[in-house]
C-alpha cells in the first residue's frame, strides 16, 4: 500500500504518548450527483492515523520479530483452568483473571503444529497486505488448549497437515503478520522475503 502522505510517529515518554508529525489529512469533498445531475450527497475524504496500545500483549509481538512464539499459562493452583495453555496469548486467565505466566512455545509449535481447519480466498477487504489467494490456517498444538489463526505462505493446506511457524525477523511489522506457517520440510529458500524459521 503506497503512502500518499507522511504519517505521524509516536513514542511513549513518562507514561504519555508523544506524537510527532501529522496524524490527519483532510481533502476537499466532491458532490455526488445522479444521472440527471441532481445532487444526492457528498464524499468526505480524509486520512487518519490511530494510536494503539498492545499493553500486556507487547511481549508476544516483540518476540515474533525475534523468531519466537509465546503463549501463556494459568499457574493459579486454585483455578479450574490451572495449567491451561493459551495460544493466542491471553494476558489474564479467563476463569480466575489472575495474570498468566508467559511461556515460550516455539519448540512445541515446531514439533507438533497441525492444521485444524483452513480456507482459501481470492477476495479480501480494503487494506489487505497478503498476496492472493490467501490461505488461512487454524493451527493446533499438543499441550495447548486453544487454536491459533494464521496464514500459510507455502503450499496448499489440508486438515491434519504438519506445519511449522516462520517469522518476519527482517523488517518486522510488529503485527500478527510477522507470523506465518509453512508445511514441515519447507526449505529456507522457499520462505517469504524477510522470514526465517523459529529459534
Amino acid at each position, binding site marked *: 500500500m503506497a503512502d500518499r502522505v507522511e504519517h505521524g510517529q509516536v513514542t511513549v515518554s513518562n507514561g504519555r504518548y508523544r506524537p510527532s508529525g501529522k496524524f490527519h489529512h483532510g481533502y476537499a469533498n466532491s458532490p*455526488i450527483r*445522479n444521472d440527471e445531475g441532481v445532487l*444526492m*450527497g457528498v464524499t*468526505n475524504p480524509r486520512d487518519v492515523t490511530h494510536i*494503539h496500545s*498492545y499493553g500486556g*500483549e507487547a511481549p508476544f*509481538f516483540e518476540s515474533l520479530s525475534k523468531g519466537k512464539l509465546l503463549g501463556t499459562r494459568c499457574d493459579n493452583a486454585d483455578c*479450574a*483452568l490451572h495449567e*491451561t495453555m*493459551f495460544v*493466542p496469548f*491471553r494476558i489474564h486467565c*479467563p476463569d480466575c483473571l489472575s495474570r498468566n505466566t508467559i511461556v515460550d512455545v516455539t519448540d512445541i509449535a515446531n514439533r507438533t503444529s497441525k492444521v*485444524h*481447519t*483452513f*480456507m*482459501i*480466498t*481470492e*477476495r*479480501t*477487504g*480494503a*487494506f*489487505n*497486505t*497478503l498476496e492472493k489467494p*490467501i490461505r*488461512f490456517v*487454524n493451527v493446533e498444538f499438543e499441550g495447548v*488448549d*486453544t*487454536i*491459533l*489463526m*494464521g*496464514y500459510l505462505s507455502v503450499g496448499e493446506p489440508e*486438515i491434519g497437515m504438519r506445519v511449522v511457524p516462520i517469522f518476519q525477523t527482517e523488517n518486522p511489522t510488529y*503485527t*500478527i*503478520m510477522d507470523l506465518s506457517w509453512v508445511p514441515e520440510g519447507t526449505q529456507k529458500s522457499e520462505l517469504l522475503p524477510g522470514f526465517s524459521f523459529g529459534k
Partner: protein
Amino acid sequence: MITFSKQQLKIPQMSRPVYMVTGGMSKFGRAIPEKRTEELVIDSFVEAAEFINMSPAELKRYIHSCYYGHFADHFGDQLLGEAVIHDRLGLDPLGNVGIKTGGATGGSTLWEAFKAVASGYSDCVLAMGWERMDEVPTDEGNHYIASAADKDWETPMGHIYTGYYAVMAQKYWQVFGKQEDSFRKTMAEIAVKNRGYARMNPHAQGPMKLTVEDVLNSPVVAHPLRALDCCLMSVGAACAILCDEETAYKLTDNPLKIHVSAGSHSLRVADRLNMDIPLLPNETPDQYKDLGERFPGGDRYPGFTGFLAARMAAHYAYGMAGIVDPTEDLDVVELHDAFTISDIQTYEDIGIRPYGEGRTYVESGDCYHTNPFTGKPGKLPANLSGGLLGNMHAVGATGIMQAIEVGHHIWGRWSEMHADEKKWAAFGRTKPDDWTDLQVKDAKRGLAISHAGVGSHVTATVLVHPDHELERRS
C-alpha cells in the same frame, strides 16, 4: 474444561409478561442513495403504526423509552446516530440507549426492550434497528465488517469476514459432511430456498430464482463458500413495539407474548476451550457419547463446528417459553442464515436436529413452507422472509425484521403484508407472476435467532399466541 454454575444456567424469571403489539419495516436494498437513514426509520415506524390502525403520532403517545440497534457507526461516519434518529422521530425527551452486538444487534435490541417492559420501567417501548452499509465501497465495507474480528490477531489477515466462517465451513464439511458432494448440495439448497422465498417479499433486496447448480457455480468467495452461500450487505430499518399486558390490549386485540434471551462466546473462534455439550430439553446425556466415533474429529465441542452462544440462548428462551422440542413446539422460525454453513450449524445448536445431523432438516423437507417431497406443509418452515441470504442483513434491523416476519405468520397477516401491490410499487419492485402465499397455516409459536461475530453473541426471540402458551420450566 468449561463448566457452568446453577446460577448461570437459571431460566430467567421476568417480573411481568411482555407482548409485541406491532412491527414495521422499510424497503431493504444494497444502496438507497435517495433516502437518509432517518427516512427509512420513519418508513418502518409508519408501517408499524398502520399495522394496528393508528397514526404515528397516536402510537408515539404510548412510548415511554426507546432502544436503538445500530452496529457499524464507522459505515455512516456518525457517532451517536441514536440521538439523531431519536430527534427525527420526535421522541425527545424520552430516555433512549444505543445497542450494538454485531450481527445480533437487532436481537439484542429486542432483548433490552423486553427487559425494560418486564422490569416495569416502561409500559410501552420502541425497539428500532437500522444499518447503512452503502456509504463506503464494498471492499472497504468488508474491511469494516472484518474490524469486528480481533483487530490484532485476526483482522489483518485479509480483512475479510467471510474467511472466518469459511474455516468453520471447511471443518464442518470434512467432519460432519464427510466431504460428501451431497452435503455441499444441501448447503446450496438453503441458498436456493431462501433466495426463492425472498421473491415473495416486497421488502427483499436479493430475490433470485436459482438452482443448486447456480449456487455451486457461483464465484468462490472463501473456499468452500461461494458468493450465493453468503448473505447480503444491506441498508434499511425495522422496528417493533413491546408493551405490558394492559397497554398491549389497549393498542391491539392481538398482541403476541414475547420472550427474549441471549448467549455469548469468545470472539476468536480459535480460543474456544473444549467442554461437554450443554444439553437442551429434547436431548439425553448419552446421546453424544459416540459423536467422535460416528464423525471422526467431531468430539471437540464447540470447536469450529458449533455455536455455544446459540445453544445458551436456546436454553434460556426454551425454558421461558416452555419449549421442549422446537420442531414439535414451534410452527415457524427465522434463523440467522448469514452463510449456508452457519444456518446448518444453528439447526443443531438450537435443537432442531442433534449435533451432526443438521443436514437432515433440509434433506427431509421439514424446513420448507411446503415439503417438496410430500407436497404437505413443512414441519417447521424456516426463513420464509428470504432470510439474510435473500431478504437483507441490515445488521441493526435484522433481528427485528425476523421477529416481525414470525409475528406476521402468528397474526395470520403474512399475506396482507407481502401481497399488497401498492407496497411492491412503492418499493419500485415487480411482484412476480408466480407470487405465492407463504402464510404458515395456524401458526401459534415461532422463533427468531439473531447471531453475531462467528457466534460471539446470539439472541433467541420466541413469539407465542397468548391462547397457545406452554408451561414455563424453572
